[in-house]
């Protein structure tokens, strides 16, 4: 599959194109981390994050690629690993103070995740396609076989509202204080 075809398929949200890219450049990208004091798990994580960043950029229509996809991915991997190495080097300087606010935030994140899982598949897909993949409503309508863009927009509004309500109800019902 050539780069042009890959880009086209990714822009349509074709996750199989992402799979193809992952397999194609796995060795090259993971070598960056492995040859720079990284483990295979870290290498995989960095490469996956780089692929997802590429995915988001292409989906948003904001990517203007002037090089090969592999070159672009390589630069992302390199930057991500550099940041990780920098973070590791500063990790020992940071004091390990777990504040109440951090605890509360973690609890809220956990609740939100549970609520997302409780959503219906359609709502979950609409919201994740919109807020992560950066798909437009027309693209979502096409992908999820809605009648039109307005239908997709209405569906999205309702799903978001429902999620807000479920999360808030969970916040009020759970007691964070022992």
């Amino acid at each position, binding site marked *: 599959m050539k780069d042009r075809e890959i880009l086209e398929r990714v822009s349509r949200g074709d*996750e199989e194109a*992402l*799979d193809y890219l*992952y*397999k194609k450049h*796995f*060795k090259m990208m993971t070598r960056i981390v*492995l040859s720079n004091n990284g*483990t*295979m798990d870290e290498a*995989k994580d960095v490469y*996956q994050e780089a*692929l*997802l960043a590429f*995915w988001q950029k292409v989906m948003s229509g904001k990517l203007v690629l002037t090089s090969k996809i592999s070159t672009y991915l390589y630069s992302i991997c390199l930057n991500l690993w550099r940041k990780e190495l920098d973070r590791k080097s500063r990790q020992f300087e940071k004091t390990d103070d777990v504040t109440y606010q951090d605890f509360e*935030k973690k609890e*809220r*994140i956990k609740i*939100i*995740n549970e*609520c*997302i*899982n409780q959503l219906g598949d359609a709502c*979950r897909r609409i*919201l*994740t*396609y*919109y*807020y*992560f*993949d950066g798909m437009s409503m027309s693209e979502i309508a096409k992908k999820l076989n809605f009648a039109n863009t307005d239908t997709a927009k209405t569906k999205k509004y309702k799903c*978001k509202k429902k*999620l*807000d309500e479920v*999360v*808030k109800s969970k916040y009020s019902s759970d007691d964070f204080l022992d």
Partner: protein
Amino acid sequence: MSINKEQTDLINNYFDGQISASEKINLEGQLSKDPLLKSEFEHQQEIVKGLQDFRRAQLKTRLEAIVINPGILGFISQSTAFKSLSYMAAGILVGTGIYFYATQEEARVTNIDQVDPYLDYALTGTDEIAVEIPLAYRYPVKANEQLTWIEPAIAEVQVDVVDKFETQPPVRSKHTFEVPQVDASSDDDSGLLGDEMEAIAPARLDDLSDVGSLNKMEIENIITNKYKFHYKLENGRLYLYGKFDISPYHILELNNKSDKKLFFQYNGNYFRLKENTRDITPLEKIEDSSILDELEIIKSK
């Protein structure tokens, strides 16, 4: 103070990426003044982030499930266990090399210490060929035997010191040998005899007008353990070292105008004898077939 619908829409538009620049400034101003609005804003922020994290995890799980086979070598080389093992193996190899190098030097020293001290001269690096010294000179001495020096009587013992390591004095036999001479009559010394010689080679030595009286050569045969097939030609006297009793031997003298050559023939081979060799010299067999042919002709005459 509660949040109105307008503020809620403003926050939603913000996270949907559908807010204008002026609306954004307006919102930021309200957030700085209204804590409740700020709390709602942060709540929406966490929900959107939650959705993004959920999708990220979903895609990463999909990618993680893809099986990529790096091959056995790739898998092994990428594992941390392999790296640890390889470092350990390298350390062991280096340590082993150092150990063997160090002990080799020690072993060499030990080995030298164990060398027979009587062979020390062989290790001094002289040009002389180290010769194994027979232990025969070590006379067995009994434990209670006292060694006394006996001054040898000169008249009684005549010792020929040929080889100080000899246990027995060399056996000598002397006789006089008449050396037949052949006149080469040629200055051509490129070959041994040259073509002219063949032309004038006499049927009998006695027919040669230039042949003077036969020279008599004293030959002394010395049987010794050290020299098995050697000679020394000094002052017209030939010393033969070794046993020459397999067959009769012959001595030929060939005279040219400039010099003369002596040859020793024994047991089917010819050997060149050089005049005035004061050192005991090994007999070197002549290999040149042309020379050998000529010598055979002369010998047969």
